C-alpha cells in the first residue's frame, strides 16, 4: 500500500471534475462525497479568477465522443432535467437513441432506478409477504443485455476504453451485484475504478464485494495507483473491523491531506468504536456534531456508541438534533429507535426502525437493531428474519450474525446457531464474546473438546498480550487479566471429559484471577470445586483452608460448612 501522494493542485482539479462528472450523471452521493473531500483539502491552490468552460460540462477527452456529446446536448439536458424531478422512465425514454457514453449511462441508470422504484412499491410493507427476494428489479436483465452489447461492440470495434466508460462499468457492476454475480461484478468495478478512480460510488460497490481481509489483499494489486485507493483501503479495513495501529497511521497520513474531512474523522471514530474505545469515539463525534450540526450521516453509529455507553440524555439530545434536521432520514429514525430501545420501550423502537427501513430498505443498522429489539420482545422468528435481511444487505455485520446465532440458541437449534457464531467469529476473530458463545454452543451439543478450543480462543482478546492458551494453565494464570468465567468454563469442560486433573489446574487459574477481579461467584464456585477436589484427594489441610475461606463469605456458605463438618469428622 505505497501509493504516491498526488500533487495537491492536480488532486484539487481532479476532485472538482469528479464532483461535476458525478453530478452530471446524477450520482448525487458520489458528487457529495467528492465535494466534501474537495473542501477539506489543507491548502487549496489559489483560486483562479474565472472558471474554465470545461467546468460547466466536462466533456470527454476523446474528440469523437465529445462531438457526439455536443450533438446530443439538448436531449441530454432534457433527460437530465426529467431525472432531477424523478421522472425516471421519461428520462430514460428520451435518451433511447443516443449514442454517447454519457447519454447511454443516464438512459440505463434511469431505467435501473425506475426498476428500483417499482420494486420498492411492489414490496409493500417492511417484513411483509412481498418484502425480500419475492420482489425483484425487473429492469435488471434488460440493462444487463444492453450493457453487454455496448461492451461487445467496443471490443469488436477494438476501441479503447475511456474514462467515460467507467460509469457504464460501474452500472454493470451494480447490476451484476443485484444478480448476486459477485465475481464478475468485482471485475467490472475494478476495471471501472482503474479507468476513472474518482467515482466514489464505484469504490463503495467494490467494498461491498470484499468479504474478508483475504479478498482485500487479493484485489489490492489490481487497483490503480491513486489516493482514492488509499481511501478505499482505509474504509474497507474499517468495515472489516481492522483496528490495528497501521490503519490509524494510514488515517493520520490521509488526514494530513484532508485535515477537515468529516468523512475521515468519522472513519477514525468508527475505528475506535470497533476497538471498543468508546470515549475516544464519542469525543470525535462530539466535535463533528459541533462543527457541522446539519450533518446526519453516520449519526446512527454515534447513537450506537452512546447506546453502549448508556448516555441517555445525550442520546436523546442527538435524536433531537437529527429530528430538527430531517425527520425522514433513515439515520434519524435509527437514532430515535436507539433512544427508545435504551429506555426499554421496544415497541416504539421497532416502530422507528421500521420507519427507517421504509425509507431505505438497505439500511443495515436498522435491520440489525430491529433484530435486537425483536429479541428483546421475545419475537424470535421476526428477529431471525430481521437479522437475515441485515446479513443479506451486508455480510460483514458481525452483530447480525451473532444475533442470528443467539436467536437460534433461544430456539434450541444449536447446530444452526453454531454456524452463525462461526461467521461472527470469523469477522471478529479477537472478540472473546463470539468465541465464548461458540464454546457454549459446543457445550450444549456435547462436544466438550471443541468447546475447550473455543473457550481457549476466547481468552485471546484484542488488548491482552496474547499468551498462548494452549500452554500450561498455570502459565496462563501468570499472565493476568483473563475472564474467570471462561477459565471456569474450560475447567467444567475438562471435568465433563473426565479429566479432573486438567480441570483442577484451570480451576486454580480461575481462583487466581481473584487477585485481579476480586471475589466473584465464579471464583467462589471454583474454590468450592477445588475444596471438594482436595477432599477427594484426601488433601485435608488444603481442603480445610479453602473451605474456611468460603465459610467467611461467599455464596455457598452452607455447602462449605457441611464440608468443614465432614473434614472435622475425619
Amino acid at each position: 500500500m505505497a501509493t504516491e501522494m498526488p500533487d495537491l493542485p492536480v488532486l484539487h482539479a481532479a476532485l472538482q471534475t469528479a464532483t461535476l462528472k458525478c453530478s452530471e450523471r446524477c450520482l448525487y452521493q458520489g458528487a457529495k462525497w467528492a465535494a466534501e473531500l474537495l473542501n477539506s483539502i489543507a491548502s487549496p491552490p489559489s483560486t483562479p479568477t474565472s472558471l474554465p468552460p470545461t467546468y460547466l460540462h466536462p466533456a470527454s477527452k476523446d474528440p469523437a465522443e465529445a462531438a457526439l456529446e455536443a450533438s446530443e446536448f439538448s436531449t441530454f439536458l432534457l433527460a437530465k432535467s426529467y431525472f432531477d424531478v424523478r421522472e425516471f422512465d421519461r428520462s430514460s425514454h428520451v435518451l433511447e437513441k443516443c449514442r454517447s457514453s454519457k447519454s447511454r449511462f443516464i438512459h440505463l441508470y434511469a431505467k435501473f432506478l425506475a426498476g428500483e422504484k417499482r420494486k420498492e412499491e411492489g414490496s409493500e410493507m417492511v417484513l411483509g409477504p412481498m418484502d425480500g427476494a419475492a420482489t425483484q428489479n425487473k429492469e435488471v436483465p434488460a440493462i444487463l443485455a444492453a450493457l453487454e452489447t455496448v461492451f461487445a461492440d467496443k471490443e469488436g470495434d477494438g476501441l479503447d476504453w475511456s474514462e467515460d466508460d467507467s460509469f457504464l462499468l460501474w452500472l454493470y457492476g451494480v447490476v451484476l451485484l443485484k444478480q448476486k454475480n459477485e465475481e464478475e461484478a468485482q471485475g467490472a468495478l475494478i476495471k471501472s475504478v482503474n479507468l476513472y478512480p474518482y467515482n466514489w460510488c464505484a469504490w463503495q460497490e467494490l467494498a461491498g464485494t470484499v468479504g474478508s481481509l483475504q479478498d482485500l489483499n487479493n484485489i489490492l494489486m489490481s487497483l490503480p495507483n491513486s489516493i482514492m485507493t488509499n481511501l478505499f483501503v482505509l474504509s474497507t479495513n474499517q468495515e472489516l473491523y481492522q483496528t490495528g495501529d497501521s490503519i490509524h497511521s494510514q488515517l493520520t497520513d490521509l488526514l494530513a491531506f484532508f485535515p477537515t474531512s468529516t468523512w475521515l474523522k468519522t472513519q477514525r471514530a468508527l475505528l475506535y468504536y470497533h476497538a471498543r474505545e468508546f470515549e475516544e469515539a464519542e469525543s470525535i463525534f462530539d466535535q463533528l456534531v459541533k462543527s457541522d450540526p446539519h450533518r446526519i450521516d453516520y449519526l446512527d453509529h454515534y447513537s450506537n456508541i452512546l447506546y453502549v455507553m448508556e448516555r441517555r440524555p445525550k442520546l436523546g439530545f442527538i435524536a433531537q438534533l437529527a429530528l430538527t434536521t430531517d425527520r425522514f432520514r433513515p439515520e434519524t429514525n435509527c437514532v430515535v429507535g436507539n433512544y427508545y430501545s435504551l429506555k426499554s420501550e421496544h415497541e416504539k423502537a421497532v416502530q422507528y426502525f421500521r420507519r427507517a427501513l421504509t425509507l431505505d430498505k438497505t439500511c443495515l443498522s436498522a435491520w440489525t437493531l430491529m433484530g435486537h429489539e425483536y429479541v428483546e420482545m421475545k419475537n424470535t422468528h421476526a428477529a431471525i428474519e430481521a437479522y437475515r435481511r441485515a446479513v443479506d444487505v451486508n455480510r460483514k455485520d458481525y452483530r447480525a450474525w451473532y444475533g442470528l446465532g443467539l436467536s437460534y440458541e433461544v430456539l434450541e437449534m444449536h447446530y444452526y446457531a453454531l454456524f452463525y457464531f462461526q461467521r461472527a467469529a470469523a469477522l471478529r476473530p479477537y472478540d472473546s464474546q463470539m468465541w465464548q458463545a461458540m464454546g457454549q454452543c459446543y457445550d450444549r451439543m456435547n462436544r466438550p473438546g471443541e468447546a475447550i478450543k473455543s473457550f481457549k480462543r476466547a481468552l485471546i482478546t484484542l488488548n491482552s498480550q496474547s499468551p498462548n492458551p494452549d500452554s500450561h494453565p498455570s502459565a496462563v494464570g501468570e499472565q493476568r487479566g483473563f475472564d474467570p468465567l471462561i477459565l471456569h468454563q474450560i475447567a467444567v469442560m475438562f471435568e465433563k471429559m473426565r479429566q479432573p486433573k486438567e480441570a483442577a489446574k484451570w480451576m486454580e487459574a480461575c481462583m487466581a484471577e481473584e487477585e485481579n477481579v476480586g471475589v466473584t461467584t465464579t471464583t467462589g464456585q471454583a474454590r468450592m470445586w477445588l475444596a471438594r477436589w482436595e477432599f477427594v484427594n484426601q488433601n485435608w489441610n488444603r481442603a480445610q483452608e479453602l473451605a474456611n475461606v468460603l465459610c467467611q463469605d461467599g455464596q455457598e456458605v452452607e455447602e462449605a460448612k457441611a464440608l468443614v463438618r465432614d473434614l472435622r469428622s475425619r
Partner: protein
Amino acid sequence: MSRYLTPGKIALLVLVELYAESRFPNKAVLPVISFVIKQLVRPKDTTTFILGLDQIKDVTVNEPSTVVGRTIFDLLLMELWYINSFDALHTFFADAQIYLRDPEKQEPSPGHVKHNKRRFISPTSILGCFIRRAGLEFSKLQFHETNSLWGAFVRFREPTLSLWKKRKLGAGPMSFDANLKGMTMNDLLVQKVYGKLDGSKDWTVSTDDVERLLEYQVETMQRLGTRVPDETQLQLRKMLSTDVPISHLRHYVNFLNSWRSGDYPSSFDSLHRYFDYTMHSRDRTFYQYALLNLAILQADFGCHRESVLAMQETINTARENKDMACLNFALSWLYHFHRAHPQDCPDVIASRMERESLQFLKAKAKEWGMDHLLSMAYLSETRQILLGGDSVPAAFESLLRSSHINVTHQIHNAQGSQILLQSTLWSRLGVSQLAWLNCELFLSKYDNGSPSEDLVVALCRSAYILSMRGRFDEALDRLEQVDQEALRSLKIYQYWASYIGLIKLRRAVYRNEFAAAELLLQQLTSSEQVEPDCALETSIAKIELQMRTGNFVAAMLHCNQVSAELVRDRADSYHKVRLMILKAEIFARSGRAMKGLSTAISAASMAWKARFLPVLFYAFNVIATILIQLEEYNAAYKMLDSIMPQVLECEDAYLTAQCFACLADGQVGLAGTRKGVSRAECLGRALGFIDRAFSEYSRVQDVYSQKLMMSRKIRIQDYLGDKTLRDDAVKMYRQVEQGREGVNPGPSPFRH
C-alpha cells in the same frame, strides 16, 4: 398540535407530585390543590383554559412549604428546572406513575427512601386520573411530538430563569439543557436545535383545552340561550392561532352562535357541517340529534311545516335507535309546538298529539326518571288548565308539583318557567302585586344560571305590570336595565324590543298621541317574529286606538278578525274573553248598547267561571256603562260599587279610572231621579268619584279623559252653583291642557 399535554399541564403535574411527597403544609393543600383541580374538571368560568406560569405563581407564591424559607413556587421552580434535558422529561413522566402505587403494598426498595413519606394517590381520584392520563398521553406521543412538547416547555420555563439563578449557583442561560454545558447561545449546535424555538407558539394549547372551552361554551349557550361573549371569542381565536387542530365542536358553537344571532343560512350550514364531521368519529349515530336540532332551528326561523316534518323524522329515528331521552324530548317539544301553532301541524300530528297527550309524556318521564321533563310536563299541564279556563286549584296543584320537583332535584333552568307561570296565574286572579313580586323574585334570586330568555321575559312582564299601574317611565327604565349580553340573541332582542314598543304604544294611545301611536303600531306589526302574547296586546292596543279615533267600524273588523284567529288556534280563553268584552265595549261606545249587553254578560259569566278576575271586572265596567246608557243607574252603581275593592287590588290604573268614571256617571244619573238633598248628596259623591277617576287617569297620562273628568266636574259645580270651586276646576282644566303641550308631561300634578 397537542392532544392533551402542554407545559402548563407539566407544571400542574409537578404540583401534584409535590403534594404527593407531602411537601405542602396542611394550610397550603386546600388553595393549591383546588387550583389544580379547577384546571382539570369541567370548567365553571372562562379563566381556566390557557394556563400560564403567572397564574400558577399567583396561587403558589404566597404559600409556604415544608422547607423553611421556601414557598411552594420555589419548590415548583426547582422541580421544573431539574427537568434539564429531553431525556429528563421522559424520566419525569415515567416517575410520575409511582405515586399511583400504594406505598403500603409495595415492599420498600432501598433506593427510594424518600418515598416513604409520600401520599398514596388513588388511581381513580381526579389527581390519579390526571397522572394516568398524562402518562398515557405522553407515551402516545411520537418522538417529534415529544420534542415539540419539550421545546414548548423550555419556552414556558424560560421567564423564571432569573429567579432560578438566585436559588442555584452556576445557573446560566444554557442551563435549560444539561447537554449544552460549556456552549453559548451562538453555537451552531445550539442554534440548530433550539434556534427555532423563539416566538413559536406550538404546543402552548392542546386540543383538550380547546375542546373544554368549546364544550363549556356549548353548555353555557344551551343552558342560558345566549351567544358567545366577545371575551371568549377572543380567547378562542388566540387558541386557534397556535396551530391546534380545530375541534368539530367549533362548528356546533358556530351553529349556536349564528342561530342566536338570527343568521339562518350560516347556522344551517354550520349545523350540517358539524354533523358531517362527527358522523364518522362517534360510535353512536347522532342522526336523531341532528334532526332534532334542525327541527328546532327551523321552528325558530318560522318554517313551521318543515320543522314538524323534521321532528317527525326525529321521532321515528329515535324510536328505531331506542333513544328514549331523545324521543321523549322530541315528543314533548312536538306537543308544545302543537299547542303553540296548531294551524301548522298536519292533521296526523294533531290527532296523535291529542292521543299521546300530557298523560303519556308524564308517564314516560316518570318511567325514565327524566325529572326535567316531568317538571316541564307538570308546567304544561298547568298551562293547559289555564288555557282551558279550568279549575284554578288544579292549576295550583300542578304548579306545586313542578316546583317540588325543581327544588328537590335542583333543576335550575326550569325554575324560570315555573315562576313565570305562577306570576301569570296571579295576574289572572287579579293579584297584580303578587304577580309583580314573583317576577322580581326570579330576577333577583335566580339570575345566576337561568336561561337569559326567562330572565328577559320576567323583566318584560314586570315592566308591563308597572306600566299598567301608570308608571311608564319607571317601566321603561326597568327595561333598559336588561343584560346587554342577552340582547345579542335575536329572539330575545325582538321580545324585549316589542315590549318596549308595546309600553310606548299604550302610553301614546292614552296620551292621544295618535301619530306616534300609528308609527309604533306599524313598527310592531311589521316584524313577523313576535311572541303571540305580545302580538295580542298589540292588537288590543290597536283596537283601543281605533276606538279613540272614533273609527269603530275598523275596530270592530279588527276585533272580529283577531277573535276568529284565536278561535282557530284554540288559544287561551282568557284572551278570547277579553276580545269579547272589547267587542261589547265597541258596541257600547258606538251607541248600540243593547247589542253589546248580551256579549258583555256572556263574557262576564265565562270570566267568572274561569276566575279571570281582571277581565271580569272589565266586563262589569262595560256592563255598567251599558246599564247607564239604558238609564239603569242604580243597578250599574251597585254592581260596580260592590266590586270596587277588588278592582283597586288589580292595580290596573286605567280600569280603576274607568270604574270610577262609571260610578260617577251612575251617581249623576241617580241624581237625576232624585230631588233636593238627596240629589246634592249624589252629586257630591259623583264629584268624589270624578276626582278619583281624574287622579287615576292622570297616572296613565290620559289627557283626554282627564279633561273629560274636569269638564264634568265643572258642569256639576256649575249646577251646584259653587263658583269658586268651579273656577278652580276650570283652572285645572287649563293646566291639564297646557301640561299636554309641555315637552315632558311627567306625572300629573294632580295625582294626589
